C-alpha cells in the first residue's frame, strides 16, 4: 500500500512535467470545482491525524479556523529536526510538487490566501528543489491570483530556518517566521485563532499536507479504511540506529512494529538483539525490546497505551552492545543544547540531567542520583510552555524505569574503575527523592551518631 511513495524514484519527479505526467495537479483541479466546505468534509471524514508529532486530527484543526475574510495563513512545518526523523527530507527532495498541491487544496478548504513553508536551514539541497518547484508552479498558474480561473488565490513563500530544533514547535516556528528568536508562546490563544502576525493560522507537517491530494482522490471515507479505526492512512516511518537497512518505509498504520524493525529494516546486525527502541523519535519514551512490545501494532493509540507515542514516526533501534547510559547522555545533551531557555524547568532540568548523567559516567554517582534524576523528570513534565522539556523528561524517565539495574551496574562499574568502591546506600533521601522503594541500608546504622 503506497500513497506518498508512489512513483517515488521516478527520475525527475521533482519537476513539473514529470509530476503532471504521473497525474499531478489533477486533484487540485477537482478540489477547486468543489465547495471549500465539501473539501473540508472529506478531510474530516478521512480522520487523517497530524504526522508531525502530536497526532491531532487535521480536519478538526482546519475547522477551528474562524470563518470570514480576514488574512489567514497556512504554514507548512518542514523544520524536521527530531533526532531519528528524516521522512520530510526525502519527501521534499523527491516529490516537492505533491506538497505544493496539498497546500493549495488545504488553503482552499480553510479559506486561506497566504502560505509559508518553513524548511530547516540545514536542508540546502531540498530548499533549492522546493524553490525551483515553486517557481515552476507559479509559472504554470498553480500559485498566484485566481488559480486555474477559480476564486482561489494563494501566495507561497519558502522560508529557510537557521538551525534550531525548537523552531519545529508550532508557536516557536511562528516567532521565528516573524523574524524573532524562536521562543515558544503561551497557549492559548492557539495558532488557529491567533498565530502568524496575530492572524488565524493553520500549521501542518509536510507529510500531513502531502496526504491531502490523496484524500481528495480517494474520498475521505475510502482513505479512512486504510490503517486502523483511529489511526487512518499510511505513514512514512524512518527506521534508523542499529538496523541493517535504515531508511524510510511507507506502511499502513497498525502494522506490527516487529514487521518494521525486522522485516523492512532487516533487524539488528547478526548476533545482536534489540535492547530498546524509540518508537517515535527521541522525544518518545523508550520501549524495551521484549516480544510483547515488539508485537505492538504501529499506530497512535496502541503505542500510547503501551506508555510511549508514535510522535514523528521515527524508530531508533538500540541493540545490546550499546550501554543505555550513553544513549541517555546523548539524548539529554541534545535537549540541553536545544532548550531555548525561556522557562526554568526545561532550561535547568535539561542542564542538571546532563550533569547527573555525567556524574554517573565519571564514577562519582550513587544510586540516589537515579532517584533525584527521576524526580527531576517528573517536575519538568507539564510545567513548561512547550513540550521540549517533556521531550527530554519522557525518554530519560523511561530509560531509568526500564533499565534501572543497568544504570546501577554502570554506577558501580565506574566507581570501581575509579577506585571508589561500592556506593554507600543513602538513607536520608529527603522529601524530593522521588519514586522508588526505600531500601534497607546495609552495613550502615542510620541511627548512629556521626562524630
Amino acid at each position, binding site marked *: 500500500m503506497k500513497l506518498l511513495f508512489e512513483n517515488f524514484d521516478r527520475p525527475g519527479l521533482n519537476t513539473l512535467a514529470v509530476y503532471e505526467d504521473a497525474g499531478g495537479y489533477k486533484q487540485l483541479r477537482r478540489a477547486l470545482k468543489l465547495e471549500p466546505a465539501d473539501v473540508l468534509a472529506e478531510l474530516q471524514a478521512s480522520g487523517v491525524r497530524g504526522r508531525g508529532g502530536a497526532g491531532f486530527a487535521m480536519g478538526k484543526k482546519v475547522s477551528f479556523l474562524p470563518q470570514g475574510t480576514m488574512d489567514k495563513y497556512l504554514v507548512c512545518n518542514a523544520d524536521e529536526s527530531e533526532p*531519528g526523523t528524516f521522512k520530510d527530507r526525502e519527501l521534499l527532495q523527491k516529490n516537492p510538487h505533491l506538497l505544493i498541491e496539498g497546500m493549495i487544496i488545504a488553503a482552499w478548504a480553510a479559506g486561506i490566501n497566504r502560505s509559508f513553508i518553513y524548511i530547516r536551514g540545514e536542508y540546502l539541497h531540498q530548499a533549492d528543489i522546493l524553490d525551483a518547484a515553486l517557481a515552476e508552479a507559479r509559472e504554470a498558474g498553480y500559485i498566484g491570483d485566481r488559480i486555474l480561473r477559480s476564486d482561489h488565490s494563494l501566495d507561497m513563500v519558502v522560508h529557510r530556518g537557521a538551525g534550531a530544533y525548537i523552531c519545529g514547535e508550532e508557536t516557536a516556528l511562528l516567532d521565528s517566521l516573524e523574524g524573532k528568536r524562536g521562543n515558544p508562546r503561551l497557549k492559548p490563544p492557539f495558532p488557529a485563532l491567533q498565530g502568524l502576525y496575530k492572524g488565524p493560522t493553520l500549521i501542518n507537517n509536510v507529510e500531513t499536507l502531502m496526504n491531502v491530494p490523496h484524500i481528495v482522490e480517494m474520498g475521505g471515507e475510502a482513505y479512512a479504511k486504510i490503517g486502523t479505526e483511529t489511526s487512518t492512512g499510511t505513514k512514512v516511518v524512518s527506521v534508523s540506529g542499529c538496523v541493517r537497512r535504515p531508511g524510510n518505509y511507507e506502511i499502513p498504520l497498525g502494522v506490527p512494529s516487529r514487521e518494521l524493525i525486522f522485516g523492512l529494516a532487516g533487524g539488528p546486525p547478526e548476533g545482536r538483539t534489540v535492547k530498546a527502541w524509540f518508537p517515535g523519535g527521541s522525544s518518545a519514551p523508550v520501549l524495551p525490546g521484549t516480544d510483547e512490545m515488539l508485537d505492538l501494532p504501529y499506530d497512535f493509540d496502541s503505542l500510547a497505551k503501551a506508555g510511549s507515542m508514535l510522535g514523528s514516526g521515527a524508530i531508533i533501534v538500540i541493540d545490546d552492545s550499546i550501554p543505555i547510559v550513553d544513549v541517555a547522555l546523548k539524548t539529554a545533551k541534545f535537549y540541553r543544547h536545544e532548550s531555548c531557555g525561556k522557562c526554568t524547568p526545561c532550561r535547568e532540568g535539561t542542564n542538571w540531567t546532563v550533569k547527573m548523567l555525567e556524574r554517573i559516567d565519571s564514577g562519582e554517582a550513587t544510586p540516589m542520583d537515579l532517584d533525584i534524576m527521576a524526580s527531576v523528570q517528573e517536575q519538568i513534565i507539564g510545567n513548561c510552555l512547550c513540550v521540549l522539556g517533556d521531550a527530554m523528561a519522557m525518554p530519560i524517565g523511561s530509560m531509568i524505569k526500564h533499565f534501572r539495574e543497568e544504570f546501577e551496574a554502570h554506577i558501580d562499574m565506574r566507581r570501581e574503575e575509579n577506585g571508589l568502591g561500592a556506593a554507600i546506600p543513602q538513607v536520608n533521601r529527603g522529601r524530593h527523592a522521588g519514586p522508588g522503594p526505600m531500601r534497607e541500608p546495609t552495613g550502615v546504622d542510620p541511627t548512629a551518631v556521626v562524630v
Partner: protein
Amino acid sequence: MAIDPSRIKRFEHGSRVPGWDDAVDLTKDPAVVPDPATTPVPKELRAEIEAHMAKYPDPRSASIPALHAVQRWHGWCSPTAIEQAACVMRLTPAYLTAVATFYDMFDTVPTGDNTIYVCTNISCSLRGADDVYAAMLEAAGGDPNFNVRGFECLGACDIAPMASVNGEYVGPLTRDDCKIIVGALREGREVLPEKQLRKRPLADTLPLEESGS
C-alpha cells in the same frame, strides 16, 4: 583582621569578578538603527535583503534570510555584517545580534570557509559518529580554512554516520573518508560523489547490509 584593599587581586576593570561576557562592551554607545549615510552597504547585498523583505507581510520576517545573506557575503556574522543588515532592515544591530546568536548556523565568530557539520546525535552515534567526528577533526588538523563542528541531528539517519560538507550530505562515513573529504575540499574536487545522499534511492530497493558491519 583588617583586609588590605591593595592586596586584593582585581581585574582590569577594577572588579574582583570577571564581569560580563566579552560580547558586552560597556564602553560602546547604545545601539540605534544605523544611519544609512554612514553605513555603506554593498549594492547587491542591499538588493538581496530588500527582495527578501518584500516577500513577507511584515518586513521584519526577513531577519533570518538577511542574516544568511550577510553571512554569505562576509563569511560570518561580524559586527559590520549585522550593522549592514540592520541598516537595510531599519532595525537595531542589537535585535539582529539577539537573533543571530539564537540559531546554530550563524557564526558570530570568524570561521573557516569550508563548513563541515558532523552529526553526533543519537542515531549516528549508535553507528560510530563520535569516532568519525574525531577523525574529521584530526584530518582537518586545525586548518583555519575548515570549520568542523559536531552538530545535532541533521535529518539523515539513513546514511549514518554522516556529515554535511558545505551543505552536501554524505554518508555512511568511515574514518578514512574524513581524509578524502578534507583532501577533496583542499583541491576543490567534488566530495565523495558515490556517497552523496541526493543519489540515494528509497531504502526498500537497497540490499541489506552485511551483518557485523
